[in-house]
């Protein structure tokens, strides 16, 4: 077939996902969705990652983000941390394997893990600022965000960042706008080595199993999948060559869970606090009903006058007269 023309092709933009698929909505409740979307997942195979930052580049371009040009601080990580404009970041770790004494350059793509039990959503006080779709996507709805930063504290992975420009919180959306029209995230599409792949969570787990088998055949006995149960599993998962030590990968939490402090704050404190305040008010009402008001008596006034002595030239005390109050 010889093609001498370049026919334009209009992309299909039919929306296939929307608010009707919410299973959680921050600071509010949603009705049980009528359908269950197939859970999706992004799988990041750290053993295939070459740290090229194509994911960062594609993310910036797709999301129309403009990060600042920084400086070099002696490492390859640029920017140096996630920012409101950097939803994903390659983190580089030079690790000498104590068993083999060989250097391993561990490169991990950091970004939102899309937890099944999202700490950000739990912490969020603004109704509808954070939503979770039935396919597992946890998304921030900018319009509803109030910029309080509670999601930052709620997140077990230290992901959300608050913009100083518009005071709203930002993180990876899993390219919800692409998923909504049937495409995968921009980072997964760009990834040259397919270290990042995207599909249904089941497919991704099956793919991970193959990858782990390959890694084990290459001597990585502890290769495994990172899908941490502490947050109910995640919709961004890692294949790690050293799954027994996640934290060597630039501090990936070994056993992530929503912090007990956040649980306390968003759990017991929230309810107990309201209760205590309510009780204080109720006790007041109860007390006034039982004890009544504490009133000053005529005698008190009289004693006051007595104590202070009548002023020269003042009218004599007339006990029959009602005291001025």
């Amino acid at each position, binding site marked *: 077939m010889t093609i001498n023309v370049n026919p334009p092709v209009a992309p299909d933009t039919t929306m296939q*996902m929307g608010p009707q698929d919410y299973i959680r909505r921050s600071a509010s409740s949603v009705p049980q969705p009528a359908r269950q979307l197939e859970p999706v997942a992004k799988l990041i195979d750290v053993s295939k990652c070459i740290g090229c930052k194509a994911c960062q580049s594609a993310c910036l371009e797709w999301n129309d983000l403009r990060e600042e040009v920084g400086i070099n601080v002696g490492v390859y990580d640029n920017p140096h941390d996630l920012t409101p404009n950097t939803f994903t970041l390659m983190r580089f770790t030079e690790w000498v394997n104590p068993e083999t004494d060989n250097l391993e350059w561990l490169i991990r793509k950091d970004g939102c893990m899309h937890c099944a039990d999202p700490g950000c959503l739990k912490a969020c006080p603004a109704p509808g600022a954070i939503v979770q779709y039935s396919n597992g996507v946890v998304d921030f709805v900018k319009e509803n965000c109030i910029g309080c930063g509670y999601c930052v504290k709620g997140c077990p992975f230290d992901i959300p960042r608050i913009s100083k420009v518009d005071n709203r919180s930002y993180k990876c959306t899993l390219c919800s706008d692409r998923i909504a029209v049937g495409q995968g995230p921009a980072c997964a599409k760009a990834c040259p080595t397919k270290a990042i792949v995207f599909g249904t969570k089941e497919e991704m787990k099956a793919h991970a199993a193959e990858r782990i088998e390959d890694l084990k055949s290459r001597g990585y006995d502890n290769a495994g999948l990172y899908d941490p149960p502490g947050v109910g599993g995640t919709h961004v998962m890692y294949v790690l060559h050293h799954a027994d030590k996640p934290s060597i990968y630039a501090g990936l939490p070994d056993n992530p869970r929503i912090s007990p402090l956040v649980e306390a704050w968003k759990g017991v404190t929230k309810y107990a606090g309201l209760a205590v305040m309510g009780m204080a008010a109720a006790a007041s009402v109860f007390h006034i009903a039982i004890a009544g008001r504490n009133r000053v008596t005529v005698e008190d006034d009289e004693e006051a006058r007595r104590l202070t002595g009548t002023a020269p030239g003042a009218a004599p005390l007339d006990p029959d007269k009602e005291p001025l109050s």
Partner: protein
Amino acid sequence: MNMEISRRNFLKGAGAGVAATTLGAFGFSEAEAAFVEGLRAYKLAGTTETRNTCPYCSVACGVIIYSKGDLEQGTAQAMHLEGDVDHPTNRGTLCPKGAALLDFIKADTRLLNPKVRRPGSDQFEEISWDEAIEGIARHMKTDRDANFIERNMDGVSVNRWTTTGFLAASATTNETAFLTYKTVRSTGMVAFDNQARV
């Protein structure tokens, strides 16, 4: 031809594993309104796709440029760029440079006008294309007429021009390259080279 279908088939057929970035099998079927709460409107709606290849390295990844406007009317403007899923080599993927090609096309430092820097000056001045072409051709003729070697010491016809050189790029098309070859060689220029070495 429905490209989406062709792309999916291609990926499946080519055994690229789970590399598919087009989801069809995820149970999405109902059409929804174009804008819904929380979801950014799909930004490529209404754009034109053009097949191109990455101008950087010689892997020559296929790219698709999404543009708005009309090329014929001079209004076409690229607004996004992604890997071409149909391309056998890159399969829709791009490296960090390729993925940011839009910022190359739209770079703040793109040149917009012919300019000349006069001898001893510390700045460029804008000139018209006519002035530029005229000035360059005049320089060439002056130098060529003065230094062209028609015959060597032995009287052999050598027809070479050694005092002006030409360094061709390595990212121009074959067609540009051949036109360049023709014009440069016809002048007898010998200090002709390209970027193969660096």
